[in-house]
């Protein structure tokens, strides 16, 4: 039952152009395109930060995915952001996403691919965008 501290790879804002945000106060449920954004500029994803204040329960982990035009940025799906059962705090990534560049008219979207029996709650997502 770990509570992982949030860590940002971009603690200085100089490289950040925009922050794409999502928030669910209630327990998350699975689904595609929970939120979608149009970035409006040529850029790259600098960091994906997901944090849950309330733990999930039951079997399995919570797993999220980020897509550009419907295709995952985590080509290695095992690297998707994951929150183990009964944990809280920042979701872990085994490694960085492979696809990080986007164009102005791309669509960036958030999926919740898997939850425990009951998903975690008070979930906030911050996708940090920078210029190429």
């Amino acid at each position, binding site marked *: 039952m770990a509570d992982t*501290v*949030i*860590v*940002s790879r*971009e*603690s*200085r*804002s*100089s490289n*950040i152009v925009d*922050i794409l*945000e999502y*928030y669910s*106060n209630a327990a998350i449920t699975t689904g595609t395109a929970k939120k979608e954004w149009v970035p409006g500029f040529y850029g790259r994803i600098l*960091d994906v*930060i997901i*944090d849950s*204040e309330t733990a999930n329960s039951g079997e399995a982990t919570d797993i999220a995915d980020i897509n550009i035009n419907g295709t995952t940025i985590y080509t290695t799906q095992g690297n998707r952001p994951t929150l183990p059962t009964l944990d809280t705090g920042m979701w872990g990534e085994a490694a960085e996403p492979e696809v990080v560049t986007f164009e102005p008219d791309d669509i960036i979207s958030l999926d919740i691919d898997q939850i425990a029996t009951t998903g975690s709650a*008070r979930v*906030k*997502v*911050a996708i*940090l965008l920078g210029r190429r």
Partner: protein
Amino acid sequence: MPDNDIAIADKPNKVGWRRFNFTDYVSGALTTGNAKKEWIVPFFCKIIDIVIDSAGAGVGTATTIFDINRNGTTLFTTQNNRPALRSIDTGYYKWTADGLTDRKPPDIVRLVPGDVLSYDIDQIQSTSGATRTIVNIMVDAQ
């Protein structure tokens, strides 16, 4: 029924600092509750203003009062300075619990990477809450 004008306590950006907004919008009637929205703070920053505005009036008596928290602890150590809107008003929330006196800034304004910013609605009007509410927490980021 005064309609308070929005007044932003703007300050010129210091060199090397940039403005970001943590925002929310509630179309329907406000209800009380904690952590109505939460944001991850990814960088060092300083809150330079908190703008809350309700275009639609609620019903009943009592002042509408918000609170803003850093990692679950209020920024308004002096609780009487929380953003507030009198029951007879619409528009901009003054930063005082009487919803009347000119605002006072929160006691805590500096944020660090990994902080979680959130807002609570501590009190609403007695029958139903105000509507069409904008929340905008402005920060200057380092």
